[in-house]
């Protein structure tokens, strides 16, 4: 073995040794697994509760913190394979979904006397007469008051909105555009998101009046138009909002503020005389089916919901208990405020259909607040959208024709192979290929197993419908639905054809800008007399080196209408030149939202093209350029007639690759515009993602999108070569 391969082998061994060493000691088989989504103080309180449980019972517990957003997908991925948790702490509103997917077991055996839980919380975890979790805590939004700004707290929302405050201070900050943020207002008008019979509730006079009311608040400047949770927190924290509607998660952020504040229930809306009622989320210790069969897991769930644990959580983490036998500590007025609110709140619906209300409701609210649609019109559209997503999947089809086709195809392939095997030429070619096969065999196995098999299975999924695990064959129905735009107008926003056009536009604009900027910078950087070249090169490569999800979010922040840096630039320009350019609401119109996405993606992608150009330019011999100069070619001629044609072969593959990447650039579209306005800037990949993960988990439908994307890319990248070959043959 040569020294070089020897050292290489050492590195290999070292890395695998590291991988092995990092592996924690294997959990013992009788360890209990507990999953949660807590952070900071709540997580610390949970650890203490679990430590007490372990000390008392001798059962070891393995804890895992999982991000709230991916809790459900992780449960789906693990519980059916026996790798999931025994006990998990999650919100009650997901119970309907978990029940449907058989991810929870009954928890009745882990309950204490039912009388110790608040009636609301027990009702929240009960479905079909069975209790599916031990209720732990209740969370809802409430009204935060900056008592330094307002001495006397008004009773009604109208009075709050009419408060006269210093310039730049909002009377109230809440997440006006989110469906969750709008629900308290909707309740004050007597409406609800989901009707009792699981049909879309966000329609009719109550919903319209609530939206008109919210629009008026925004138009009067009483509330910020497009605040998300983080902005609500920032506004309140910095004293720029007298009131804020937010939840217990804001309390931790207020530890260091210099003004006095308190928490009280939400106000009454004078127009109806009804209080704003926020939705209540009950966190419960749920048992997976395997956990429900373990006495130790039941004991753990019981301990988590016990009075000691509840008392500890309230004291240490300020988590409101649902137990009636655990009073709120007298020295904690904040918790008392949340408890008062919780008693007035209504548990969120746990019906699986609830999930499908968010996206349509969110879009409708946003449209109305931006003045792009009337409430009635926007809500009718939302109802339509809800019905579309909830529409039952296509009917099962007979698999016989497909199986026949498949059999026929296999037969043909086999026939072809046999004929080739008999052909002496082919045999000889095969024999000559043997040495090469020794070099490729292992990667054929790896790529075949890890790349081709999942891909083929994934593509085959497009012929199925229904939830994962209970899918059935539907033939080409998914494709038919997509290509006919689900029966709607072919070029309506969100239809396949519209999204396709946007995707092509997106790819073309990005590739042109990537190439243009990359080429220009590459050419400038390769000037022989340029100073500081290395410095420029390093600085210009930075966008490539920073993780794209980080910078995509940074760009989104820069495009915020009120507080973004771009708006800051507009103000600066106005101050400097005395102009009066209005700040732009970037994500409310297609053109500007699209431009924001493009700016982000161009920023991410130009360094790649620049580096490729630089590399290609090193291959252009100086003497050719000199010869052209001697022949009297101008600079421009030298560039277009000599340099560009010479670097074209090196650039072409990079452009193809860049186009494929851009076509499937999910991160930027999803994180920056999120499809705004109204799904218009979604591209095919983000649309496929939405069908798979936010709309009823229609994997078959999403897979059909993936297959269409694949075919489109295949055809467009193959077409030029194919055309060239044909025109050659014709000649």
């Amino acid at each position, binding site marked *: 073995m*040569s020294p070089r391969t020897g050292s290489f082998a050492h590195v290999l061994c070292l890395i695998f040794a*590291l991988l092995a060493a*990092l*592996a924690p000691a294997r959990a013992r088989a009788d360890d209990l697994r507990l999953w949660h989504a807590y*952070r900071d103080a709540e997580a610390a309180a949970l*650890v203490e509760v679990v430590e007490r449980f372990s000390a008392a019972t001798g059962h*070891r517990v393995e804890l*895992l*913190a999982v*991000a709230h*957003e991916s809790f459900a997908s*992780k449960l789906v991925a*693990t519980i059916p*394979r026996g*790798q999931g948790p025994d006990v998990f702490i999650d919100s009650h509103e997901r119970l309907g979904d978990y029940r449907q997917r058989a991810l929870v077991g009954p928890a009745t055996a882990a309950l204490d006397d039912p009388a110790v839980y608040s009636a609301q919380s027990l009702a929240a975890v009960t479905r079909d007469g069975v209790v599916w979790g031990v209720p732990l805590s209740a969370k809802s939004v409430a009204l935060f008051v900056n008592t330094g700004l307002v001495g006397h707290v008004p009773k009604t929302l109208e009075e709050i909105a009419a408060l006269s405050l210093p310039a730049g201070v909002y009377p109230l900050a809440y997440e006006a555009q989110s469906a969750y943020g709008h629900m308290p207002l909707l309740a004050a008008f007597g409406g609800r998101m989901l009707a009792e019979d699981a049909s879309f509730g966000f329609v009719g006079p109550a919903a319209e009046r609530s939206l008109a009311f919210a629009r008026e608040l925004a138009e009067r400047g009483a509330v910020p138009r497009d605040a998300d949770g983080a*902005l609500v927190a920032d506004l309140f924290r*910095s004293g*720029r909002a007298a009131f804020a509607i937010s*939840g217990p*998660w804001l309390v931790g952020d207020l530890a260091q503020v210099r003004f006095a504040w308190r928490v009280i229930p939400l106000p009454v809306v004078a127009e109806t005389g009804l209080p704003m009622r926020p939705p209540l989320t009950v966190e419960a210790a749920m048992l997976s089916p395997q956990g429900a069969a373990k006495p130790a897991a039941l004991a753990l769930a019981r301990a988590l919901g016990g009075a000691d644990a509840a008392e500890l959580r309230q004291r240490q983490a300020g988590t409101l208990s649902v137990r009636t036998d655990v009073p709120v500590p007298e020295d904690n007025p904040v918790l008392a405020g949340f408890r008062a609110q919780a008693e007035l709140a209504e548990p969120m619906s746990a019906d699986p259909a609830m999930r499908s209300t968010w996206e349509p409701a969110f879009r409708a609210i946003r449209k109305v607040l931006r003045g792009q649609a009337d409430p009635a019109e926007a809500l009718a559209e939302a109802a339509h959208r809800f019905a579309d997503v909830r529409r039952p999947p296509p009917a099962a089809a007979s698999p016989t024709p497909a199986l026949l086709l498949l059999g026929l195809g296999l037969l043909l392939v086999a026939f072809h192979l046999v004929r080739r095997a008999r052909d002496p030429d082919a045999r000889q070619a*095969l024999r000559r*290929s043997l040495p090469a096969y020794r070099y*490729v065999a*292992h*990667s054929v196995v*790896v790529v075949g197993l*890890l790349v081709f*098999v999942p*891909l083929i299975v*994934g593509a085959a999924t497009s012929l199925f419908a229904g939830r994962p695990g209970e899918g059935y064959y539907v033939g080409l129905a998914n494709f038919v639905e997509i290509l006919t735009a689900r029966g709607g107008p072919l070029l309506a926003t969100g239809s396949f054809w519209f999204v396709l056009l946007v995707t092509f536009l997106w790819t073309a604009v990005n590739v042109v800008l990537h190439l243009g900027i990359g080429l220009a910078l590459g050419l*400038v950087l390769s*000037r022989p007399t340029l100073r500081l070249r290395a410095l*420029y090169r390093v*600085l210009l490569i930075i966008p490539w*080196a*920073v*993780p794209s*999800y*980080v910078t995509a979010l*940074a760009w989104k922040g820069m495009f915020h209408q009120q*507080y973004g840096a771009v*708006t800051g630039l507009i*103000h600066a320009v106005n101050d400097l030149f005395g102009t009066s350019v209005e700040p732009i609401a970037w994500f409310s119109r297609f053109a500007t939202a699209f431009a924001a996405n493009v700016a982000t993606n161009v920023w991410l992608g130009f360094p790649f093209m620049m*580096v*490729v150009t*630089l*590399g290609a330019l*090193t291959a252009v011999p100086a003497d050719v350029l000199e010869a052209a100069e001697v022949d009297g070619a101008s600079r421009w001629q030298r560039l277009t007639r000599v340099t560009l044609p010479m670097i074209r072969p*090196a650039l072409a*593959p*990079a452009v193809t690759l860049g186009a*494929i990447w851009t076509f499937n650039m999910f991160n930027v579209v999803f994180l920056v515009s999120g499809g705004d306005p109204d799904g218009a800037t979604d591209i095919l*990949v983000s649309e*496929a993602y939405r069908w*798979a993960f936010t709309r009823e988990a229609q994997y078959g439908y*999403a897979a059909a*999108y*993936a297959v269409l994307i*694949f075919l489109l890319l*295949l055809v467009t990248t193959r077409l030029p070569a194919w055309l060239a070959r044909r025109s050659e043959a014709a000649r």
Partner: protein
Amino acid sequence: MSPSGQGRRVGLVESIGAHLLLIVAVAFALYPVLWVISLAFSGAVEPTARVIPVPIEPTLEHLRGVAFSTLEVPGGPDRWLFGLQLANSIVISLATALVGVVIAVPTAYALARFEFVGKDSGVRALLATQMFPAVASAIPLYIILDGLGLLGTRSGLVLCYATTAVPFAIFQLRGAFETIPRDLEEAAMVDGATRFEAFRKVVLPAARPAIAVTALFAFMSAYNEFVLAHTMLGREEMYTVPVVLQRYISEFSADWPKFAAGSLIVSIPVMVLFYIAQRHLIAGLTAGGVKG
């Protein structure tokens, strides 16, 4: 007309123009990054539209908060969580780069040097796999990994990443090998080396820059990935850093300063690698390139 004098003046104007263009480009490239940095060091928030990214009430608290996070183990001593997670990230990415390159090198060599039955269709099929969105093939991949008993392990994650790293490395390296003159190996073979020895002792050293760049890409894509990492990894002490970052920004409360601080720490290793590799980057990239 005195060509030299005018030429020099034109040269000066052009040179100023070039620097101006580059400075604008650098400002464009750095601006968002500076915002992330300023956020990471800000001790207070001030919701106003600002132009210059400077931290308000500068503090190191967020950086410290991220870097010194600990895992409280019930009934055991606390562990330095962030250290573990950073080590995970680095080891997983190194392993991905290594697996990608080790598998791809011989294959790419064979594609560059041999003619064999199935070569063209194989290459085309491999390129085609890169066009299929991961949304649809992720779930079958889980099932396969589960069958191999690797679901929820770091080795399983490395295999997941290898699915994109290997095809990319094959294309990249095939181009690199094609640019190495055949004479080199032929001379070695005339001197009595076998084909494999010639490959190992002559071709591989010559292709080192391209291999380094390919490995860097594989490293980086694994290092920055979080969707798969999040779904695949089963325990907090196995998490990679992007997964940790994602936890700072949840639906209800987003801890942007901590997210920014974490992003900074995450970016540093990649920046260092880029800085070291940038000399090779240009040569290595062009040598490769995807040819369908």
